[in-house]
């Protein structure tokens, strides 16, 4: 059981890491892009834009948490 938990934890840490919101944001963005592409909309600009926005929000959250503590 411990080994199974350890295995799961390893993959969670390896793939998801410190901010699960990044993973959720990426999945949601890809669902939107996929749906748009299969309905005739080639929104290629959306993915890089959303990724940088997700990263910026995650970084600002991390730094704001710290600033708030000080």
């Amino acid at each position, binding site marked *: 059981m411990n080994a199974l938990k350890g295995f799961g934890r390893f993959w969670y840490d390896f*793939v998801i890491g410190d901010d699960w919101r*990044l993973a959720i944001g*990426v999945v949601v963005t890809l669902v939107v892009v996929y749906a748009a592409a299969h309905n005739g909309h080639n*929104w290629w600009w959306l993915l890089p834009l959303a990724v940088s926005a997700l*990263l910026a929000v995650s*970084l600002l959250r*991390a730094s704001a948490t710290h600033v708030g503590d*000080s």
Partner: protein
Amino acid sequence: MTHDVFLVAAAFLACAVEMVEALTIVLAVGVTRGWRSAIIGTVTALATLAAVIAALGPALAHLPIDGLRLFIGALLLVFGLQWLRKAVLRASGFKALHDEDAIYADEQRAALAAARDDEGIDWYTFTVSFKGVFLEGLEVAFIVVTFGSAQGNVALAAVGAVAAAVVVLIGGLFVHRPLSRVPENTMKFAVGVMLTTFGIFWSGEGAGLDWPGGDAALFGVLVYVIATSALLVRLLRQRHARAVGPRATVR
């Protein structure tokens, strides 16, 4: 051709980072408790890894390419953003720089504290070496299989990994101490940028996007990711300097 160079370079950098971490652990227990069990643990881990790769590699090759690109691209994107996030936090002063010397010292202290069985294999050394090499090796295998499969050339990604292994091994033999001289955060920053770039490009293709300019768009995405990351480092550095001072870090 451009894709091939990019693929080898990305696999090389990503794998080198993982290998440096594994080598640090093996060096620490090997120097402290003897090389025999450290080497046996390392070789056993590599053999186990080879079996895992042999079992999983061919299965991946039979998956449909668009579905594969979407799945792998999404995984790389999430994985790459995680690396990039940490690298930006470190570069801006919000997170302490990763210290290979501290890891080495911790491993040495733990190794000295553990009971030693003088007969046969030293299981502590074996286990620590096995664990370090197997876990980091799994990450290397993941990088090689995912990079290679999405590009349709696992062998080329493996070339990058093998080159990284040779360079890190030679480096380890020469340095023979923790590899703290390797500018780790710079390396992680570059890996994060590359993983994110590949992730955006492949997942976009897999989702059905047509990138303007075709494959050349990869460079455009790369420039965009570098520019936005550099901008974020700059913003966070200013924020750090203005609001918290040099002593603060986040996990």
